């Protein structure tokens, strides 16, 4: 065995055993560095005669190649080990809690109003609005409730001490019906609107709050009759509750602003202490509950709004938005609607991404 072979083997063994990158670098300098023995051996080749060189060169060249490769291999291994060790040191406890993004919510009243707007948009109804502080002409007189009308007294109206320039009483609207008048005055006929919003009655008990939400619907056109009213409300309730088995019962009633007037009951069953809408109220285990007031718009109302009642007729309906929300989503305490308790809002509120659409179904399932 030549010296070179011996020294090469020793170097390769040292490289393979190099404990770290610094030791490896020292070995590199010792062998392949400018003054390393491999480099020096290579330099000797220049002083040799050609025959000698031919004989000695392959051994030196291959020693250099072997050592260089061994250093690379060892370096990669040492670097990998070092990275592994560093990563091991960087281990964290991922069972620790991550920062929590607060989850916001949309109020059930807003959500249901959006649902209603979506359903009625498909039937061609636009959304109209009006002031909540009204005058008694819009809230009562134009709706066929003159000053002495007994129905006025039944409205538990909140009044302000003010009078309008025309001398009208100023009050908080008791229903969304004044929007009918304003919409007819503003847009004329034909007309299809819904008008959701806040309304006020001086009434407070377990099922009444002095402020609540109503939605009004109005269709003014030619040849509109009670059959259209029935279909519209059936269609609306089916879409709202997303059930085909909705059964309505129409009962004659009285509202000064409609003639004929019809109260709408819907069949329901009690399941687990909750009213579940669907089926006929006459079926066993079922009953009827009142959900909407409606009727054919009184001629006087059409005339008060400036339209010709001989030319135009139509229907109107109204219902409680809070109540629809309760029936659909199961909350039972009306007062909690207006309390602002984040626990209730998180429980009954809706994700901002539950924007009602017809294609996805307007309702947001639990």
């Amino acid at each position, binding site marked *: 065995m030549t010296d070179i072979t011996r020294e090469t083997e020793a170097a390769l063994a040292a490289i393979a055993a190099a404990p770290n990158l610094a030791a490896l670098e020292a070995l590199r300098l010792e062998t392949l560095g400018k003054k390393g023995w491999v480099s020096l051996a290579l330099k000797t080749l220049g002083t040799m005669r050609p025959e000698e060189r031919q004989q000695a060169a392959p051994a030196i060249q291959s020693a250099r190649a072997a050592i260089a490769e061994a250093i690379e291999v060892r370096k990669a291994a040492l670097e990998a080990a070092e990275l592994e060790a560093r990563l091991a040191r960087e281990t964290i406890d991922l069972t*620790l809690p991550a920062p929590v993004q*607060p*989850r*916001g*919510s*949309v*109020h059930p009243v*807003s959500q249901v109003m959006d649902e209603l*707007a979506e359903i009625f948009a498909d039937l*061609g109804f*636009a*959304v109209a609005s009006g*002031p*909540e*502080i009204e*005058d008694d002409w819009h809230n009562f007189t134009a709706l066929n409730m003159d000053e*002495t009308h007994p*129905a006025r*007294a*039944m409205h538990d109206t*909140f*009044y*302000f*001490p*003010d009078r*309008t*320039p025309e001398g009208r009483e100023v009050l*908080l609207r008791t229903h969304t019906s004044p929007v009918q008048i304003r919409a007819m005055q503003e847009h004329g006929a034909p007309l299809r609107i819904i008008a959701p919003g806040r309304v*006020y009655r001086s009434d407070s008990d377990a099922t009444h709050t*002095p*402020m609540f939400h109503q939605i009004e619907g109005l269709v003014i056109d030619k040849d509109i*009759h*009670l*059959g*259209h*009213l*029935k*279909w519209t409300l059936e269609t609306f309730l089916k879409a709202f509750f997303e059930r085909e088995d909705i059964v309505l*019962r*129409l*009962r*004659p*009633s*009285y509202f000064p602003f409609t*003639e*004929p*007037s019809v109260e709408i009951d819907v069949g329901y069953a009690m399941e687990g202490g909750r009213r579940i809408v669907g089926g006929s109220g006459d079926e066993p285990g079922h009953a009827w509950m009142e959900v909407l007031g409606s009727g054919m718009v009184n*001629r006087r109302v059409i005339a008060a709004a400036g339209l010709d009642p001989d030319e135009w*007729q139509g229907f109107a309906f109204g219902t409680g938005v809070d109540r629809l929300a309760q029936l659909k989503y199961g909350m039972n305490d009306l007062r909690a*609607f207006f*309390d*602002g*308790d*984040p*626990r209730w*809002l998180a429980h009954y*509120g*809706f994700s*901002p991404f539950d*924007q009602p659409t017809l294609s996805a179904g307007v309702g947001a399932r639990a």
Partner: protein
Amino acid sequence: MKFSLAWLKDYLETDASLAEICDALNAIGLEVEGVEDPAEKLAGFRIAHVLTAARHPDADKLQVLSVDTGEGEPLQVVCGAPNARAGMKGVLGLPGAVVPASGMVLKKSAIRGVESNGMMCSARELGLGDDHAGIIELPDDAPVGMEFAAYHGADPVIEVAVTPNRPDCMGVYGIARDLAAKGLGRLKPITIPAFTPTGPCPVEIRTDDAEGCPAFYGRVITGVRNGPSPDWLQARLKSAGQRPISLLVDLTNYLMLGFGRPAHVYDLAKLKGAVVARRARDGEQVLALNEKTYTLDAGMTVIADDHQVHDIAGIMGGEDSGVADETSDVLLEIAYFDPARIAATGRKLGLSTDARTRFERGVDPAFLDEGLDLLTGLIVELAGGQPSEAVRAGAPPSVPKVVAFDPGLTARLGGVEVAEAEQRRILESLGFAVSADWQVSCPLRRHDIEGPADLVEEVVRIHGLDKVASVALPRPEGVARPTASEEQRRDRRLRRAAAASGLNEAVTWSFLPEWAAAHFAPEGEPLWVLANPISEDMKAMRPSLLPGLLLAAKRNADRGAAASRLFEIGRRYFRSGNGLSDERPTLGIVLAGEKTPRGWQTGKAQGFDAYDAKALALQLLEAAGAPVANLMVMGPDPLGPGPQFHPGQSATLRLGPKTVLARFGMLHPATLKAFDAEGPIAAVELFLDAIPARKSAGFARPGFAPPALQAVRRDFAFLVPEALAAGDLVRALAGADKAAITAVRVFDVFQGPGVPEGRKSLALEVTFQPGEKSFTEAELKALSDKVVAAAARLGAELR
């Protein structure tokens, strides 16, 4: 309105069952609110014969009875009643029956070791009275084994809601008429007990207020004997929820509840001189039957004699001339009062009575004579006495309304085809007179009929609303068109953006306690306060959304909530210049409590700060479509958000000096104190009405043209006066070269070692954007010089 089935059947000849009658009532618009059927309650109780009675072996007060129930072997029953004895007949509750008074379910049991197979019942236990001294004793002829309900003649009571347009149905007879029209039976004619009037009425009767009291009929009856009413009358009144008082009073109530006709009976001995319907004098007083004194005014009609007022016309009689047990001579009053006058008087006096309800809705003007005769006949029959001739002052309305009716309207408005003959039958059965050419004269009692639409309602409700078929509303072809207004779209975006930012949407009252509203009222803006608030807490219309949210946050904190992140989209209410309502759409936010709870990463719990409020304000204004890039942060006062906010940690966001789009920041400690809330609390209010409308645009966006060359960023650190607003420096730098400088961003603010007293260090990153070609070193130098020069104009020096 409540009445018993027996009462209804006094006027309606019918075989219909209770259920059929209730269905029909609902169908014709007399909504059944409840049915009380005592027969249901008495199920399982039957007539039993006590065969033997022996002492209980282990209890002195108990007896062991052997009872025949009419079938099978006699039953052994243990009974504690002192009157239980062999040979008597009584009522036995069998196992399974529910005791009406207590709700207890009877079962077979052992009482002190002796088996008992039921319970002999007292009147109180069956809910039939107060007697609990012993068990019910039935006459000897009571048939053993019969259901007690059937024997007792338990009479179901129906409660209906009568709508205000139907005063004619505020008497049982009117309801019977409607049911007969529906085909449920035959309406019986009214039977008036015969009497012979003798001599003229000895009392002068007059109406001096023809407007308020167009007609005043009366009659005197002498020698009556007042006292308790007969059982049939008491039973009828009780079914209607009326307490029997005395025969004379009960008979007027019977006329009112049975026929919708209020009347009054005066004790003649207590009247002096002529009895006159007249206007009250201002300040005149009357002690009414409810033992309260009412002060009257000249707008009210009264019945008075020479000395005093005896009756608030149509509402309540006077105590001084009311009948008593010893009354022997009476004056009957049947009058017709102007409904509007009665309504106004009742409202003013705050007095609700059954008479008022009927008069203000309109009684039957054609039922004065008949009503008077009916009342007279009943009094004479039951209380004896000698009636005088009737006297009549004035006359009630007597001209019927005639409506030209087109039977085709029923289909056009009501949506249902009803044969003309059937329409005619329905109207006639309700008392309308229909001529051959469809001129329909309305009965005077139907004040609600104004025109053809009302007749359609009559026809349709009797024919059956259930026969109206659904007809699809015509709709335009194709996909439904968008209907939401710009404002609605804005609110929807805002609402969902706010919720997506982690806020919970609340809905709070539009009215506030006065102090809370006053605290947030804009300077010089008087509160809008309700004249008749329901409570002190709901009195003044809110001038801001913040107080309501703050009150909610306070409630939440009191309940132990760590944080309230609440928002509301709603209106603020102001008076406009002309006194009308000015309602401004607004978004309010209150951030209270912990923004981040204490945590292993973040340490102590952190509250919200004014920058949280600012971030939300800007983000939501952007969602609302406001030009956020042009907004200026302005404050403190007088350009600040108001004294409700911390003067040094709040600001407004404005488009120019006048247009305030938002206010935000920390609330003032005085605000927190006023609301008893623990701070710090941050708040935001967006004034949505101030956001300028956006020009409607098409769908296509402008082309995408990113700059061709990469931007150059340079950092600058300045020493500036402590009071200099960073925003001013940013604006100055951005304006130093509007073409080249595309962004300026503060990345450090420092005060402390190395920074002189009264100064602070602001470090900013300025972005220079080259256009066609890259900047040369010289150009960059020139730009930097401009930046430094612009800063120097604000007193800033480069560090």
